[in-house]
């Protein structure tokens, strides 16, 4: 196939000999950088914490910053809570703590 210029006058930088094989490279070369935007989210079934009622993607009432500073934790029952919320809950229970959602015995998921 050989060199395949885009047009007679314009090339993306360093158009390479084989179009079919090096198509991707061509694009990358013409692209100096790509600054993309994403939002992060917790990979959980629910949207809000069953204890504090705040969004998982937000943070618990005691925290100011979401994400790493206020992580989620899953129980063996597969219910998720803000780590800080469930810790408070567990500590407030005199005997064995139960999941606030399903009443099963609370156990941190391995």
């Amino acid at each position, binding site marked *: 196939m050989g060199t395949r210029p*885009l*047009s*007679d*006058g*314009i*090339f*993306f*930088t*360093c158009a390479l000999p084989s179009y079919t094989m090096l*198509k*991707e490279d*061509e*694009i*990358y070369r*013409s*692209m*100096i*950088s*790509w*600054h*993309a*935007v*994403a*939002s*992060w*989210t*917790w*990979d*959980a079934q629910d949207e809000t914490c069953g204890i504090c009622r705040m*969004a998982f*993607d*937000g943070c618990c009432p005691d925290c*100011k*910053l*979401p*994400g*790493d500073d206020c992580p*989620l934790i*899953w129980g063996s029952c597969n219910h998720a809570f803000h780590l800080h919320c469930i810790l408070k809950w567990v500590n407030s229970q005199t005997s064995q703590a139960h999941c606030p959602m399903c009443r099963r015995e609370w156990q941190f998921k391995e």
Partner: protein
Amino acid sequence: MADATAAVCNLAILEALSGDAVQEISESYVGFCAATESLLSGIGDLSAGSEMARHVHRLCKYQLHSLVWEHFLTSLEENFERNGAVKFWQHFEPYRDISISEVDRSHVCDDQIQEVLCKALEEISLENQYQKKCLLVLVDALQTYKDQVLPAKCGAVTKKEFLLSKYQLMISSVLMASLPRHFPEILRWYFKERLEELSATMAGESTDHFDSQENDEMDVDGNNRMPSESSRMDIDGGLHGDFSENKLIKNIGKVVSDLRGIGFISMAEDAYASAIFLLLKAKVNDLAGDDFRSSVLDSIKEWIQAVPLHFLHALLSFLGDSFSYERSSDIKSPLASRPLSCYPGSDNLSEGLVRWQLRLEYFAYETLQDLRIGKLFEIIVDYPESTPAIEDLKRCLEYTGQHSKLVESFISALRYRLLTAGASTNDILHQYVSTIKALRTIDPAGIFLEAVGEPIREYLRGRKDTIKCIVTMLTDGTGGNPNGTGNASDSLLEELNREEENQENGAVEDNFNTDDKQAWIAAACWEPDPVEADPLKGSRSHRKVDILGMIVGIIGSKDQLVNEYRVMLAEKLLNKSDYDIDSEIRTLELLKIHFGESSMQKCEIMLNDLIDSKRTNSNIKATIGQASQTSTVSEDSGNSLDILDATIISSNFWPPIQEEVFNLPGPVDQLLSDYSRRYTEIKTPRKLQWKKNLGIVKLELQFEDREVHFMVAPVHAAIIMQFQEQKSWNSKKLAAVMGLPIDVLNRKINFWIIKGIIAETMDQEGEGHIYTLLEGSGDSTKNGGDGGSCEELLAVDDEGEGSVASVEDQLRKEMTIYEKFIMGMLTNFGSMALDRIHNTLKMFCVADPTYDKSLQQLQSFLSGLVSEERLDFKDGVYYLKK
């Protein structure tokens, strides 16, 4: 005529007389009249006096005193009219038609008038003096008769004074009765010219300062009429040489005393007073001018001391005014204790001069004040360079107390010059801030400022971009003050902060008195919303509150301002191609100080997201060398991952983001999913959701003769990449490949058409357009840049769409929930006022979601409904549109 009257009056006496007596009387009377005649006409010759005295004595024998002096005065009057007044006015006849205005003041004419005036005055004074002498001859004759008859002297002095004052009155009424209209003006002109001459002399003279206290002590007791005795004066240190010996002063003094001699006492005073004020006014205008960058008040005051007061002192001394009354030396004017009391001479002179000084200073203050108020708009435009002019104005106003003049004049200047459709919101805001800063000096309690600021605030509230401009002004250093004052890269917040720090350092120079402080504190209660947290607010922040408070006052609530800032911040952060947020962090710190930390919480998280993103991004890049555990296919793309960076946001804390869906080129999509996978590996159980339309792509397009760099939105990058595979596209097909609606594609591709990269033609076969990659650089050069690496930053879309929903859009979205409720209310109640709708919503919408909007927000939502013709607004109440 006069003879006849006199005869009638004495008829009764005549009847009682014998024939001899009548004969004697009539002979004497004829003789007296003839003697009078020759006395008055014999210029300088009083020899007819003794002849007249004989006749007078004989007439007096018959108790005909009054006949005698009345006839004599009448003769004097006639003579004065003939030889004095008429001649006197004739001198000025040639100047009748000269309008003595500023316009024609030729020096020739001036010299002439001066000469004529002096000559005329001299002549008339000589005549006057001669007549007075004649009168004294008569007085003497009457007196000698009285002395013969009644040896005891009684009433002699009274008679003399009576006749003299009658004479004075007579001549001045003769002159007044024939006074030409232009004479007072000639006088004023004369004084004006002389004073100007004097002023010029003064300016030429060296301004030697030497202490003359010792000399003064010698002079204090000397009641000397000689001007040289009081030639030295020391007023506030300003001192000039032998001023009153000046020929000019003598000349003027002569004119004034001549004028007084012919009874023009107040006319003379009016003339020189008005000349002084005129000169002073001109001097103030001259000194002040349009230069606002230096203070002129002190030089004006110095000049008052140096010229008019000096002149008055010399003049009054020359005239000997101060010594015409005796005053007990221990009764001193309270003002005499001022430095002025060191004028040599009596208290009267000082007192008179103090009064003059006060008058002149008040006039100067008022003149300067009016001048500055008239130019206040320009002065404020020039602020802070114009600070000296502001300081002057402050002192003037303190003296005159005419602040209301300032308010009225400035408000009308604002309406006329600033609050017009042509002025940009930014300019209005900057002028508003400068106004606050400038007037704060004059009016620390902010009372007049309140009145002046209100029209600006009201006007700004009617502009849509006000909040945006305010936020920009507060937070953006680069778009700062167009006047280029201070540090160019300073935001207003930065400036306010620095100002406060300076004040802290120099806390001693706190010149607020307690009353002002109270007023200040009261004025500082601007905050309409409760402040949840204002940890750094101490009493020291009161002064700062002013400017910021008055700016927030335009919007009404700090929350709206913070909200707008958040949207603008989001826009800015999402368009960054690096993670450099130093200036945003600084701004946020300042905003936290002023608005409280909790208000800025979300913004803080946004900035924190960028910091985290930077860290995460480099962590992800660090995994490139390692084989991905979960990946099976993407080893080859690992090498390309270094061109991809990402900003990862905590979307709950960001303003709503506009999402657009379209297809990215496969390789790019591949990169993104590779990036996500690596992210999840590091951050599990967190995952990424790409906002494909957001971000910045740097492209390099190479033409035959040049390469062009672009910074574009992802959608533009995705479009142009399609042309790499295929140089020409039908718009429909391209839209399908891109996953964009055709109209959106047409709009977006416009970007490349404008840049001259893509050409648009109609499709001959089917519908739609053909887009073709332009060949060669021919006609594309004009837009493509000049062959180098021209970076074109296109942060925001060509259609002006931001990445973030505007505050209005957000509000409309949030308010839609209440729309049904509002419509229901209006159906039930017919019509409701804004307050009532607001309160009802507050009362009933307490959950899911709680109504938490401000009155202003509700109002702007309702006016949206009105413009959509769903509601009607009349007389302050809302109706359903029928």
